[in-house]
């Protein structure tokens, strides 16, 4: 992939929360990722692995402890005041629960146009026309402009969420579990809509999800997170064939797919994700990895290139060239 197309780059982002005098919670540890124009980067992981903290830092809701976020060559973590506010128009979010993310007392028209009014891009009397244009874009009837969020179904609300994220013509849209609360058939429609809009407008998408199968279907690149660390970055295409990190494999084996042989024992990961408070040294995955060796308990593996476009952090894999 061409280096120049990276529109947003997270460099060594770390976020630590101090929870008491002697204990720190490490939500994100040294994360470096790139978002390319017109491409989708999927981020998978279980709950508590730091996905949400990571994207909150990207959208400047949370301030990172250390590290940089380069957007078009400038570090946006250093921005303040008006500049920081303006930056929000480049990065927009779509949330998991659209009912909570949409103000219940505003009409759809006002919700869609609110960002534009905030940035003084339109006048009040233009609202109607713009709302209708965006409703059409997300395939909803124009009459919806005068409705309230509670008049709509979950899928329709999520479309409003997408419309609101699009009005500012952002370069990056981050979807935080945007389809997790929806039925499968609705999920499929929303995904198709997102992908079509992405192709039309060449937007980059950061897609956060816990469903590794869905992520692999819609992402160009997938980053797998575990306990605040990226353990593997690989292309979304044929992800299940190339995945080599034991955690990624464990995730894949936990999926129930159609037409599965019932006699197959699910090769499950044992145990649960340990607490991110006061992490031990070494590999974050050591407590659940069946092959963990002494080395894994002492030194934390770094992300290394395994093949082109495929990075993995594991001591047990035969990789020579460090990145």
């Amino acid at each position, binding site marked *: 992939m061409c280096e120049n197309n990276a529109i947003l780059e997270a460099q060594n982002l770390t976020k630590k929360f101090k929870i008491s005098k002697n204990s720190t919670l490490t939500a994100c540890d040294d994360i470096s990722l790139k978002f390319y124009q017109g*491409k*989708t980067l999927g981020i998978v992981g*279980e*709950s508590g692995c730091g996905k949400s903290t990571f994207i909150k830092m990207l959208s400047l809701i949370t301030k990172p402890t250390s590290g940089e976020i380069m957007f078009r060559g400038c570090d946006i973590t250093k921005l303040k005041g008006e500049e920081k506010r303006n930056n929000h128009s480049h990065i927009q979010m779509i949330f998991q629960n659209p009912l909570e993310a949409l103000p219940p007392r505003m009409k759809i028209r006002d919700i869609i146009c609110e960002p534009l009014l905030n940035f003084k891009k339109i006048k009040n009397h233009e609202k109607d026309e713009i709302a209708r244009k965006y409703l059409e874009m997300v395939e909803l009837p124009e009459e919806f402009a005068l409705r309230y969020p509670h008049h709509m179904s*979950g899928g329709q609300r999520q479309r409003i969420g997408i419309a609101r994220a699009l009005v500012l013509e952002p370069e990056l849209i981050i979807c935080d579990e945007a389809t997790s609360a929806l*039925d*499968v*058939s609705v*999920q*499929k429609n929303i*995904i*198709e809509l997102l*992908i079509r809009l992405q192709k039309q407008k060449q937007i980059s998408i950061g897609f956060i999800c*816990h*469903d*590794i*199968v*869905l992520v*692999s*279907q*819609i*992402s*160009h690149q997938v980053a797998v997170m575990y306990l605040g660390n990226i353990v593997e970055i690989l292309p*979304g*295409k044929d*992800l*299940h064939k190339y995945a080599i990190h034991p955690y990624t494999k*464990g*995730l*894949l*084996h*936990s*999926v*129930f*797919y*159609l*037409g*599965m042989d*019932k006699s197959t*024992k*699910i090769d*499950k*990961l*044992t145990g*649960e*994700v340990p607490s991110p408070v006061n992490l031990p040294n070494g590999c974050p995955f050591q407590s659940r990895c069946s092959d963990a060796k002494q080395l894994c308990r002492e030194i934390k593996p770094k992300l290394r290139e395994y093949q082109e476009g495929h990075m993995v952090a594991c001591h047990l894999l035969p990789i020579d060239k460090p990145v």
Partner: protein
Amino acid sequence: MFEFRNISVSYQTGNPVIENFSLSMKEGEIVGIVGESGSGKTTLIHSAMGLLSCGGKVTNGKLTFFGDSILDYSDEQWRNIRGKKIAMIYQDSGAMLNPIRKIGSQYVEFIRTHEKISKKEAWNKSMQLLEDMMLSDVDHVMNSYPFQLSGGMRQRVGIAMAMTFSPNLLLADEPTSALDVTTQAQIVRQMKDLREIYHTAIIFVTHNIGLASYIADRIVVMKSGKIVDTGTPEELLNNPVSEYTRKLLDCVPTLEGKRYV
């Protein structure tokens, strides 16, 4: 053993939420009920527990449990089978448990309402059941409040409680939907083992058709309160009768399936 015979359920508004639903369960059978939200899955199993809320009523048909029509049961009779012969697991057992009491004290109370045994015995019994659910450090679990446990642990506590009296029928309402995939895989395996150990029949309500096809002997697909398709997982996946099932199968993301980008 348990049979829904042509039942219809409606709430106050009058429109039936479930219409002419029939299903008969054999002992030790696992039936998966699949459908999208609003298809009446939860209403169905609440009706089997006699727990319909807000003026919900079975307006038509019969529910039989070992030949007895349970719809005619008195409150007293209901109390005898509920929790003991027919048990239920909820989507989030954390919400079922009392947040301000420790697991141990709730568990002991639950056992003692159904059985006349001493606190000590009840405590030991619950420890044993929790251990069977592969919870490590049972002492710690018994002395914790629900919020101190992870989602997977809470769900295991919920299952252990439901299995306390080896019920004949277990109603599971989306028991793994709120869990992470790795935990989900663990719990699903354990539920399959339950059938081997206790010979319990399970009605497994889920929206994940892939999961249903793994765990169930028979799948029922519901849409707007009606059965649209039924059969073994193989039959359903290979030759779905209804257009709706076909659509539903088509929407499920698969590893080798279509890529959008």
